[in-house]
Structure formats: C-alpha cells, structure tokens
C-alpha cells in the first residue's frame, strides 16, 4: 500500500523548481512516446522543440502564439490567487474579440488612427462584461463560478457562431461564415518586418511588470492574496470580499478580452468561426506552470506556445498527428501537479502484511 505523508517543512526553493522538473520529465516521457511511435526520439525532440525557434521568423511566431496565452494567464493568476476559479477565459476572449472586432465592422470605412486603440478598449470592456456575469451571480446568489464561467464560454462561442453566420457575414464573402477583412487602420502594426510579430507582443511585455507591481506591492494585489490565503484574515483587516471578487474577475476578463481583440486585429485580421485554439483553457495550465506569477506566466506562456509550434512542425516533418500537442500539454500539467504533490508530501510504502500482524 502506498501512502502520502505530509513533509514537515516545505522547501521554498523546491516550489519554484518543480516547474523545471515537470518540463524535464515531460521531455523524457515525450522521447519515450516518440520511440514507441517508431520515430528517432532525439530527432523528434529537435523537430518539436528546437527547429520551430531556430529562425527569426520562428521566434516571432513563438511570440505571436505566446501573446494571448500570457495575457490571459496573467489575468487568471489574479483570480486563482484569490481562490476564485474563473475557467471561462475562452468565452471572455471570444466576447472581447466580438466587441473589439464589432467596432471595426461598425466603422468599416473608417481609417481613423483612433480605431485600433478603440477596438482594444472595446475588447477589454467586452471581456470584462462577460466576466462580470459570473462575478455578479456569485456575489448575488452564491453560485459556483466554475460552472457559470464555463457555461458562459459555450454561450459566447454560440454568439460568435450566430453573428458570423448571420448579421456580420461578409456581404462579398461568397457566403463563407467569415466577417469582412479588417481594414489597415484596424490592424495591429507589425513590429518586425517580414514576420507576423505585432504590437500585441509589446502590450504583453508591458502588462507583465505592471501586473507584477499590482500583485506584489499594490493594495489590490495584497487584498487578493490575503483573501486567497486566509479569508478570515481578510475580514479581520476589513477588506471587502465582494469588491475583491469583482476586481479579480474584471482584471482577468479584461485581459482575456484584450487577448481576443489582439488575435482578430493581429494575426487573423477578421472574425472567423474559430478565433482561438483553446487559448483560454491552455492559459489555465500556463498560469499554474508560471506559479501564478506574471514573470512565471511569461516564461510558461512561451513554453506552451512552443508546444503549439512544435506540434505543427511534427505534423509536417514527421507525419505525427496533431494530437501530439495535446499530449505534451497534458503531460506537462500532469507532471507539474505530481511534482507539486511531492514537494509537500513524501511517499511511504506501507506493507499490508505487517499492518495485519500488528492488529492481531
């Protein structure tokens, strides 16, 4: 019989090391899986993790993919730190993209320089509005935010589907369920020539230190952390639980909405039926892999983006199914959770026989 026994003291250093262990274990298990599939494991790892970023273009792609993941993960960190389980970032991203993209479609003739910033702001507001629903329901009726935020994701996706199959369909689009292509004034400027790297990456890089300051040294971050670690102490200090729920939902919704708008105004350039390949869900892994810390989220976001690129590359080069991406992400989360458990507990193997003898 295997038993988990609580360790006396948790090593602070190990808490931060466990993501690295998780990455190493994922790589090793990945190699094992590749060799079972009859692929040279070293070659496969190189194809998966090195080749995609061995060119400027590749690195630019990595940042493009990482942008939404990092933004959403930073937002989610605020919620998770407060012990609020917003898992509806995918929906907030979708509604944010619709709000930002909708502004562009409304002014499709405009070439105003205010259009693109306006879209970003609308995107943030859209995401906030969608995140505000579970916040309101939780405060007013005590509903479980896990259920409401998740269900609202599907509602958001259906709204997207309805709009591009109906009112927002491109009139000259040969009946494809896609919106108009956004005009240049609505698109995020490219910051590195010959690549797709856009302004959104700069916005992300600005968000990281701002979020870090907010979380670590601002009263808002302090309240969020206290509420997550010790809700009674939060009452004792006189912090308002309701306000903290609102703030953390609005921050995460706003950032998810921003990420959505950045996607449609950046690499996509129009509204299409699938705006995100599950960024809102993957960002949950990113947030935890990054220890709910903005800088950690940046690093783990880049890593997770690499699994997307590597998956594409493996599909092309090695004829491996695209599911490999999912396998890698799943393994990463699994090993992270496992190492987190082992940081706090030790494994004891208890002999069954012995136990019986003692009783008798």
């Amino acid at each position, binding site marked *: 019989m295997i038993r988990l026994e609580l360790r*006396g003291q948790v090593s602070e250093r190990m808490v931060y090391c466990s993501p690295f262990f998780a990455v190493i274990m994922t790589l090793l298990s990945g190699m094992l899986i590749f060799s079972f599939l009859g692929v040279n494991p070293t070659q496969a790892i190189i194809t998966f993790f090195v080749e995609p970023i061995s060119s400027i273009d590749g690195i630019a792609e990595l940042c493009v993919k990482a942008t939404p993941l990092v933004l959403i993960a930073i937002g989610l960190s605020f919620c998770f730190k407060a012990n609020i389980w917003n898992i509806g970032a995918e929906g907030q991203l979708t509604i944010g993209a619709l709000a930002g993209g909708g502004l562009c479609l409304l002014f499709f003739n405009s070439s105003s320089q205010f259009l693109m910033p306006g879209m970003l702001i609308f995107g943030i507001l859209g995401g906030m509005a969608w995140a505000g629903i579970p916040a309101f329901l939780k405060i007013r009726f005590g509903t479980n935010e896990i259920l409401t935020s998740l269900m609202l994701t599907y509602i958001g996706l259906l709204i997207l589907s309805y709009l591009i199959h109906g009112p927002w369909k491109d009139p000259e689009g040969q009946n494809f369920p896609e919106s108009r292509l956004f005009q240049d004034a609505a698109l995020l400027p490219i910051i590195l020539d010959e690549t797709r790297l856009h302004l959104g990456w700069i916005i992300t890089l600005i968000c990281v230190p701002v979020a870090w300051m907010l979380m670590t040294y601002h009263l808002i971050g302090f309240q969020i952390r*206290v509420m997550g670690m010790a809700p009674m*102490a939060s009452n004792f200090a006189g912090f308002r639980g309701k306000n903290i729920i609102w703030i953390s939902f609005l921050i995460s919704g706003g950032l998810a909405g921003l990420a959505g708008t950045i996607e449609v105004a950046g690499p996509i350039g129009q509204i299409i039926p699938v705006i995100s390949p599950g960024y809102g869900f993957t960002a949950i892994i990113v947030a935890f892999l990054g220890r709910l810390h903005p800088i950690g989220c940046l690093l783990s976001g880049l890593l997770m983006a690499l699994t997307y690129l590597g998956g594409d590359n493996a599909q092309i080069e090695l004829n491996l199914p695209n599911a490999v991406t999912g396998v890698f992400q799943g393994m990463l989360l699994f090993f992270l959770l496992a190492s987190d458990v082992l940081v706090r507990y030790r494994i004891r193997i208890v002999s069954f026989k012995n136990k019986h003898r003692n009783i008798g």
Partner: protein
Amino acid sequence: MIDKKPILELLEISKAYPGVIANNRVNLEIKPGQIHALLGENGAGKSTLVKIIYGVQRCDSGKIKWEGSEVSQITPQIARKLGIGMVFQHFSLFDAMTVEENIALGIPANLANENLYQNIIDISEKYGLRLDPCRYVQTLSVGERQRIEVVRCLIQNPKLLIMDEPTSVLTPQEVDKLFKTLRRLSTQGVAILYISHKLQEIIDLCHVATIMRAGEVVDTCIPSEESPRSMAEMMMGANLMTPKKNERMISEKPYFCVNNLNHQSTMENGIDLKDITIQAHKGEILGVAGIAGNGQNELMEILSGEVRASDTSSVSIDQVSVGGLGPRKRRENGMGFVPEERLGHGAVPEMLLWENAFLSGYQSMKLMFNGFMNVAKSREYTEKIISSFKVKTPNVNVTANSLSGGNLQKFIFGREILQDPKVLIVFQPTWGVDAGSAAYIRQSLINIADRGAAVIVISQDLEELYEISDKISVICEGNLTKPKIIENISVEHVGLLMAGIKPLENDDLGDQ
C-alpha cells in the same frame, strides 16, 4: 501505594517528526492508583507521548513495559485490550444518537450487549457520574458529554485512564465533580495519567507530576509540596513575572458602548445574542467569562464589525454610532482587535511578518503610498513591534506560521497596541500560549489600560480574568450578565453564572 510495582513503564522513548524532536529519551513510571500529572507548555511533547502510549503513534526507539513485561507493538485496539482507556480533549460523539448508542459504538462488540443499559447505570452510580442512557447527546451539556466519554472508558474496566486536558471545557463546579470521580477511581487502584497545564488543578488532584520541556523530562515533583509559581518555573525553565495592577484613572462616562443588542448568529449551530449591553470605560479592563460556545464568537464578530448588527445604533464609541461600520472604519475610530485564532484570522500564515504588520496597520501607521505598499516603512514598523514586544524571530522576512504560538501572539498584540487604540478588544488572549508569553501579554493589556484605553477581554480562563480584570461579566447562552467589580464576586459565583444558574445575591454558595 509507594511500594507497588509500576503498571506502565516507559524507557528511553524517542520520537522525531521531520524537523523537530517531539520526545527525547523520555522515562516515565506510573503505579496503580496513582494520579500522575504530565505537565508542560504547548509543544513540550505531552501529546506525542500520550499518543505513543495509546498506540496512535509509534515511537522511533525505546521500550514500553506494561505490568512488568515488554509490549512490542501498541495499537489503540491492543491498548484497550491491555486496559488503557483514554478521554480525548475533543469528544467523538454523535449528536443525533442517545448516550447508550454512543457508548455502544466505541467499545468492543462483546460488551455492547443487552446488559449495556444496566452497566451504564451501575457505573454512573458507582462513580457519581449521573448519566441517563436514553438522552440524546445534542441535549447534553459539555460536562455531561465528557461523562459519556469517561463512562465509555470505565465500562471496559481500565487499569490506566488517560485524560487529555479534561477541564478546559468545564465550569469550576463540574471540575470539582470530575475530581471526586477521579479520586474514587484512584482509591480503587486505577492509575490516571492527567495532562494539563493548569497548575492549581494539578496541586489539588495529583500525587506525582512529571514535567516536560522541549521533548524531554526535566523534573518530577510532588505537587502538594509545590506552589503554582514554582511549578510554572520548572515548566518554563525561567522565572515568571506576575502582572502588576496599578491604581488608575477610570473615565466617568463609558467610552465604548453596546446598547440592548440583539443579534441572530450567522454561523451554523451558532448562539444568538440576546439583549447585550456593555459599557466599557477608559482605563478599565472588562473581562467576559464563559464556557466556549456560549456566544463569544458572535460577540467578537459584532464588536469587531466583521459581522454587522441589524440595529446600527446599538454600538457606539464616544457617543458616535459605529454599528454600521466594518473593521477598517472601526479602526479609523480608534479600535483594535485581537481575534482568537492567530493563524488564518489575526495573521496570514504564509505571509511575511512585515506583510502581516501591514494587514491591520496600513491605515493608522500610514504604510501606504498612493495605493502601493510602502515596504520600507512597513518593515520599520515590524522591527518596532519585534523590539518593543520581544518577539523572537530571525528577521521581519519570515512567514507568520514559522513563529511559535506565543511569539506570534506577542507580535499580533504588538501590532495592535502600537497603533495606540482607544478601545482594544481581545478574544482568548493567551490561548495556547506559553506561560512566559502569557504573562507578558497580560502585563501589556494592563499597561494599555493604564494609558487610558478601554479594554475588553473575552476569555475562558478564569485565572487570567481574575488576574487582570477590573470588572467581570459572564456570557451564557448568548446572555451577558451585568458587570461586577472583580473584588466583589467569588470564583464560585462566576462558575454558577457560567453554568447558567442564577445564584442568590449571597455570594459564597459553594458546591451545589
């Protein structure tokens, strides 16, 4: 009794947990009929030792001898078979079942037969433990519940009875009854291992005391030949200071008032507060005595503003109503609070000391700058707390849960007192705190009253309340009695009030 062979012998028992040695080569000998006290501060290793004897924990090394022969493995089942009974500090009873059913559940199957009913009545009569087997547990008082646990042990004819802090939930009168039972058991040859940190009780009851400190046996003594003070000093290994009360100016008008407050508890199985009136004067310490679970939690929440009263005018400071304000605004009005639970309520366990200082001090100590935490200033404030309240910690960058109970409580008191509150409300100020820190905290409560603050102390510890209070009220079933000047009310009288009995105006009634 002295020349009898020991029933239980512990030889060189050691037990280590990760990072701490709980028991280090402990030797202990208990003889039949002996009431043996195991005395020590929190964390001295008493509980671990008892768990080893009862088989809940296994020792790393050492021998256990029972009636002269060595026992290799002890589990609770084996312990019961040998004749060891234990009454835990926390009861394991089902509220919705009768006394008989509860007893039947905790004993070997062969005893839980049709004779059980009669057995319970016989035993309870024999030892003066009045108990009706048909009553449902939920209708019983805490003292009666404890009797169930004791009877459950006695029905199995134990040779050794272990009692873990049995009196912490009892009124003085109930304690007397329990002691009578224990003495009777002792004369019939049952050995009793009695764990407590209440010194007067041990002097009254026990034949021998073994004193533990930091996992080791440091001393043994005959309690009847010692004073509480001398035993406390053995326990701490240091000299103890006793709080000094000074004559002080007490304001004529009450400063902090609660008027006819009624409040429905927000907790499950909570106690509703009924018509509570408190008048706290500046320069005065008001003690609120009572057995746990009689509305103290609700009272604390209402006084701190964590839960707000429906009638907002019922709480006021200096004639300004504060009943509608939360804890933050009440602090702005000069209040300070120390809740019962240190970790998780008064302090955030995983946060650093300076962050915990910021937690309640950020407004009055101005530790914020444009919404951001002023780290340097917070650290400075924390240093000040540590140095003026003698908190033992390497620096301000350690987490709150790395401090011992007593040190953390001193830190929390320092944090509140340095903000110079006009009204300080504390709940169980020295609960689970070592004797040295407890004395220090009591003195600091007296000092702040000397400086003109109104202090309210809610506590279950009557000794403590008699040591520091000027007036005392008793809370029972959500009712609060009128305060009496402490010199004019006897412990027995307070005990009766705690049990919900209205004594006649004659003070010294004695045991009823």
